[in-house]
């Protein structure tokens, strides 16, 4: 939930974005492969790059929920723009906000709040994607403090950024034999070289580059927090980033459903408007219920304490990225042949919706992680809700497998999939209770029915994989 004191700020920002958004030409951004610098200036002038940054450093100091709401609004108009801003607010700046020293924050955050510089996050390498324990980039004592060597790929905001949070192995630093640390690098640091823009299936307006780090020597205080603590820091930063990304997926879902409603409201086939056809009507209604649950899960995750956020952000990232893709696909399908033509704009929504299922942790990896967490922590729950059923399955698996849980990825994948549906169900019910409207109740009830249906194949797989 957006905090009450933030509601006015968020409402004003979203109203402004509604006007600004109508002027955003998503297809032109897609064709050009870049966001016009004037638009980035406008976003910066609105203060969007400071939404999540502390007020004492020139930001708005908004909660994760509030930031997610704004990013979702941006994504309705263009996903590349939403990704650029959302990455800066989440993965790009969260490390500095949460773990930076007062000096680092005072030096960097005021300018970052103005979007000058924009922030990026560089973890992925050719041999280290979802498995970040495999990074080869190293930071070690050298030069006038520490030296960083290595290379990164798929750096979102790469060509726009002036500051990078880098994940690197840090042997010997902080008294740890191995371990990993996060390091802040500037684009102006000698030895930092930003690669060429990647050609992509979607999100073409969002910058994606490689990053070469060749003997980059910086003061030791560029390391964020305590050396060797990157795994713990990453858990927090990724939870923020994944929740922000899930919010963007909700914006894509809204744009897709709006386009589908518009088209089905005037297009006639078989002598009737498409929206009057029972199958189409059901698809649109179920799409709205899915979006209701996606939005509810983002709010549920964003409003959690740190431990809850870390788990629920996994579920939100998986459910919302799959949901955004599903809704964009539905919009293409309901547009018929015209959906396949770029002019209608829904083809772009579909292309843009593909990569969120992959980046910031491939969904199937995150499902296994969520399953492991569920099995490792579940407590017996009474009742016949999906949440109770999944919790009791988790308890049963833990009792049966004990320490062998980590060797049962197929079962953990199925359990993680079920856990995502269960969390979304709980979130949808809570949202309906908060909104207390007949429409919200109906959407939540539809989602609960859908979630039960969607649980069936995973329950089957769980039985199939059980020893």
């Amino acid at each position, binding site marked *: 939930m957006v905090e009450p004191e933030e509601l006015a700020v968020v409402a004003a920002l979203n109203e402004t974005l509604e006007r600004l958004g109508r002027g955003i030409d998503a297809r032109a951004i897609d064709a050009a492969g870049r966001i016009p610098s004037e638009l980035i200036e406008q976003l910066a002038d609105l203060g969007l790059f400071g939404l999540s940054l502390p007020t004492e450093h020139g930001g708005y100091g908004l909660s994760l929920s509030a930031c997610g709401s704004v990013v979702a609004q941006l994504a309705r108009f263009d996903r590349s723009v939403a990704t650029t801003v959302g990455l800066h607010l989440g993965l790009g700046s969260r490390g500095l906000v949460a773990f930076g020293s007062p000096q680092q924050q005072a030096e960097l955050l005021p300018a970052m709040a103005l979007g000058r510089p924009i922030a990026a996050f560089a973890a992925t390498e050719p041999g280290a994607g979802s498995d970040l*324990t495999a990074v080869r980039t190293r930071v070690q004592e050298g030069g006038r403090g520490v030296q960083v060597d290595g290379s990164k790929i798929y750096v979102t905001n790469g060509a726009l950024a002036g500051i990078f949070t880098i994940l690197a*192995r840090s042997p010997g630093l902080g008294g740890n034999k*191995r371990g990993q640390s996060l390091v802040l690098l500037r684009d102006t640091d000698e030895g930092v070289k930003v690669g060429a823009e990647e050609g992509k299936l979607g999100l073409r307006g969002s910058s994606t580059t490689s990053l070469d780090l060749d003997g980059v020597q910086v003061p030791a205080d560029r390391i964020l927090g305590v050396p060797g603590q990157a795994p713990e820091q990453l858990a927090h930063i990724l939870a923020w980033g994944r929740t922000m990304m899930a919010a963007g997926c909700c914006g894509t879902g809204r744009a897709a459903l709006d386009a589908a409603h518009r088209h089905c409201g005037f297009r006639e086939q078989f002598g009737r408007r498409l929206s009057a056809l029972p199958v189409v009507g059901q698809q649109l209604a179920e799409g709205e219920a899915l979006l209701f649950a996606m939005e509810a899960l983002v709010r549920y995750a964003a409003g959690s304490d740190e431990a809850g956020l870390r788990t629920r952000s996994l579920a939100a990232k998986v459910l919302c990225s799959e949901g955004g893709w599903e809704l964009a696909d539905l919009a293409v399908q309901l547009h018929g042949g015209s959906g396949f033509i770029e002019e209608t704009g829904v083809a772009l929504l579909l292309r843009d919706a593909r990569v969120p299922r992959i980046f910031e942790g491939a969904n199937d990896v995150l499902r296994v992680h969520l399953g492991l967490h569920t099995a490792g922590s579940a407590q017996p729950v009474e009742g016949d809700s999906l949440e109770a059923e999944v919790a009791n399955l988790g308890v049963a698996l833990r009792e049966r497998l004990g320490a062998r*849980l980590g060797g049962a990825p197929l079962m953990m994948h199925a359990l993680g999939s079920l856990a995502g549906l269960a969390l979304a169900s709980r979130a949808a019910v809570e949202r309906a209770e908060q909104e207390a409207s007949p429409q919200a109740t109906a959407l939540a009830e539809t989602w609960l029915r859908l979630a039960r249906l969607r649980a069936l194949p995973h329950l089957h797989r769980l039985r199939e994989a059980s020893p």
Partner: protein
Amino acid sequence: MLSPAHQTRILGILTDLTAIPSAEIQPGDRLSEDLGMDSVTRMELVSMLAEQFDLDIELEEAVAVEDVRGILALAEARLGHG
């Protein structure tokens, strides 16, 4: 003490999971800070121990282990000596 054969097998599992040569792994190495294992890799480690040695290990006990010495002790307590 665990038998040398058991120790070698356990160090081999650690090498498989971390790509760190067995000869470089010391009993005092911490699983996270020194061997770079995250929570999922640690669960894989105890799972592989349970599988390969056919051990009954409680999950809560296994995830509480913080270093290589603890892993060796966990195995020793169940395998006995030799």
